[in-house]
């Protein structure tokens, strides 16, 4: 391993910074995500020219312009479809899809579920700020019910989606959640996503300081974070709380919060198994509003991983199999078809 001599100097984060001025609002969570992606990229064994960023429409989707890679800023909701065509055509490309909650789950909802089931090897970063930013503050399908926004002066009566449950239901092979204000966690998740061969769906809680400020503060602020967040890790017990004194236990299929004390030892807790879809679904279902008393903590980390052939690999294999069996038909044969006749 260490004998390999690298001819080109290792890339740095700066090599991925484009010459375009970043135009997000001051304090936007997008800055942190851009920065973490640029930081982890030099660690990946990918040629710079093989990275492609595909995005839809929305604040998040401007991401493409700020990465010094190939990039295609497409139209609202359709990044998944564009990315599918890119990946099907050239499986060698390292395709990253950048999208927001409205772009992914509302206007692009159909493409979202179909991308998940097809399992192209695409990394999908969904910036979730639970609001429409670029159209100036309407609620999104991920906004909490009751939200007062530009288009809901009396509060929204829409029930939000739980995007991780949606992804799991759509047969996603990699489902994770991270936060804009936790750079290290993001970097870890991005690396895990990149290692995964298949569509890796990462939801990132991203603060919109202008239209939905502090909506995720229970999970990002020092004084509440440890009580509200459950950081999950494969093979590890589910511990949370200010003093790591709480845990999740499974009572059959029902998650129960327990205090770690003389009655409940750490050994009794739910051990995270990211290969167990049933339990991953239970975990994704921990989606309580923090105003409820009591309520479950919100999990962050890799929920679920599954090995399944990618669409492009199956397509390539099918082409190889048919070509081996039938061979390539010459254009002249295609033009003449099976039956011809001659007019003298």
């Amino acid at each position, binding site marked *: 391993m260490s004998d390999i001599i690298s001819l080109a100097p290792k890339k740095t984060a700066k090599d991925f910074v484009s010459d375009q001025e970043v135009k997000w609002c001051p304090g936007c969570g997008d800055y942190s995500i851009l920065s973490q992606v640029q930081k982890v990229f030099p660690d990946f064994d990918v040629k710079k020219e093989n990275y492609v960023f595909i995005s839809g429409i929305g604040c998040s989707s401007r991401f493409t*312009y700020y990465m010094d890679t190939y990039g*295609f800023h497409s*139209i609202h909701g359709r990044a998944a*479809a564009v990315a599918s065509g890119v990946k099907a*055509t050239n499986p060698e490309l390292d395709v990253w899809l950048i999208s927001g909650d409205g772009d992914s789950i509302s206007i692009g909802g*159909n*493409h979202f579920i179909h991308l998940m089931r097809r399992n192209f090897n695409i990394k999908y970063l969904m910036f979730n700020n639970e609001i429409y930013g670029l159209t100036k503050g309407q609620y999104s399908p991920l906004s909490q019910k009751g939200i007062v926004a530009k288009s809901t002066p009396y509060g929204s009566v829409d029930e939000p989606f739980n995007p991780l449950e949606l992804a799991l239901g759509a047969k996603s092979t990699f489902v994770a959640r991270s936060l804009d204000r936790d750079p290290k966690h993001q970097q870890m998740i991005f690396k895990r996503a990149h290692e995964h061969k298949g569509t890796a769906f990462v939801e990132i809680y991203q603060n919109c300081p202008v239209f939905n400020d502090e909506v995720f503060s229970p999970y990002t602020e020092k004084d509440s974070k440890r009580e509200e967040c459950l950081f999950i890790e494969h093979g590890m017990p589910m511990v949370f709380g200010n003093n790591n004194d709480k845990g999740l236990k499974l009572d059959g299929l029902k998650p129960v919060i327990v205090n770690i004390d003389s009655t409940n030892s750490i050994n009794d807790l739910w051990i995270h198994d990211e290969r167990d879809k049933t339990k991953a679904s239970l975990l994704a279902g921990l989606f309580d509003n923090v105003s409820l008393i009591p309520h479950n903590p919100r999990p962050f980390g890799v929920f679920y991983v599954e090995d399944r052939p990618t669409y492009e690999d199956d397509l390539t294999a099918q082409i190889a199999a048919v070509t081996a069996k039938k061979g390539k038909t010459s254009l002249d044969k295609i033009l003449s078809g099976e039956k011809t006749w001659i007019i003298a």
Partner: protein
Amino acid sequence: MNTLDLKSGKVTDVREAENIVVRFSGDSGDGMQLTGTQFTDTSAFLGQDISTFPEFPAEIRAPIGTVAGVSGFQVNFGSKEIFTPGDMYDVLVAMNSAALKTDIHKLKKGGILIVNLAGFDKKNLKLAHYPEGINPLEDGSTDDFIVYKIDVTRHVKDALATSGLGNKEMERSKNMFVLGLLFWMFDKSMDYTIGFISDKFKKVPDVMNANITALKSGWNFGDNTEVFKTRFKVDVAKLSPGVYRQITGNHATAIGLICAAEKAGIQLFLGSYPITPASDILHELSKYRGNGVKTFQAEDEIAAICSAIGASYAGALGVTTTSGPGLSLKGEAMGLAVITEIPLVIVDVQRGGPSTGLPTKTEQSDLLQAIYGRHGEAPMPVIAASTPADCFQAVYEAARIAIEHMTPVIFLSDGYVANGSEPWKFPNADNLTPINCTFVTESNNPDGKFLPYKRDDRGVRPRTKPGTPGLEHRIGGLEKQDETGNVSYDSVNHEKMTHLRANKVDRVADFIPPAKVDTGKEKAKICILGWGSTYGAIKTATLELIAEGHDVAHVHLRWVNPFPRNLGELLKGFDKVLIPEMNMGQLCSLIRAKYLIPAESYSKVQGLPFAVDELKSKIVETLNSK
């Protein structure tokens, strides 16, 4: 043109005919499409020219015996050049009462009507909504025709009595009996169809034998019973020498795309969502995995075009196929392809609209949608195929212009040419026009960053693909700065870019053939200007009118955007211009607006192609009007 004359009464009189129009009509489950196709292929194989018109209901299996369930297949075959499936039939085969009711009005006086008696019992007459006690075979309404009433169902059952098949299975072969009879009547060999049946049913010998037996008994029925007074002889056509095949428009479209991608040296990617009448292109292309063709059945029309855009961006020839409703859904993404200036072929097989409209019928009503149907100033070249075989050349040209000029191109076909078929003297692959697809691998800007929107002298930007070292750049739907392609909201730049994109499309006119008179002479008294699938009907009408002494010319457009450079000048040479279209006069509006000439529209929106006779009447009427 009707050469049938059956008044002789002489048994097995062999008559010669220049061309014959046969209509097979029956229930959707009667196998009329297959019967018609076999009859057509045999005719073509024997060297006759042909033109077909399959017509079927939108429902897969409408209730048996009803008018809604009638499926028809019309073929015009002959020893002369054939350009249309014919206005009226010489022979109508009606398998049931509903079929007769639907199609009898187009049977020529003195024509032959062959009916399956089993389809005219009380139940079938009622299903076809004939009034109680009325049977069209007995009430004198068919006296103008030579009627052969045959109990096909009974004959087939008799012939297959020892086959061991059940009643229902035996009945399924009744179309083969009719086909055999028609083969006898027109003196055609059964070999082609026997070969077809043997191949199709090789795994079910019972069914194979039953179909062959039914086919032969139909032939023998004609030969032995002396019921039929006349047989016909239609000579081979004097087509230009060469090797021919039979082809439908959708099939020609599919292989045109394969050839274009291979000639350009790039992958072919089709993103498509099934829609009538375009789905057959997806079906056909999906067979070519062995040639590396990637077909992607997307989740919807929008994903279909967006995946094709992604594929083109990654270096393929991206194609999407659809019909009118799908074209509407693709509108926004077409704009993306316009502003990102990437090659893309959008195939629109038009059908009757608006909305779901007449899904299985033909129309030319998407022309303005194709040319203008997008938000913003989003011009793109539009080409239309004139005949089934012409779909090959037209879609090949669409791909060539898309690739060489870095633009989306719309290829317009319609239900009539897509499903119709004709003999095709196909080209050699070597003789196809080369397609130049160059990917830039080095920066075009020695002093700095790659300039993805720096144009050549045709106004065309360079093509790159991701994976090329050193040329990393971003494109997208936001307005771009000239040359750099960076996002720009500058108002003057936007106007400049709008003009640059429009000019690029306009200059495609320098790379397409000039408009010319197809039939007749320049400066004739009247020009019949057509586009797309009206070609055959207009040409036939023009030929006949010229033969009758009228001063008529036919000009047919292949590129409808941009128009050929000389079109205005050519049209101004005629006293009158008449534009027949299967829409409300869309091309006519364009021609009047662009050239300020008093062109007249002849509109037909019945979901049916123009009949030659109605065109001729209209042309003569227009000639004689002030």
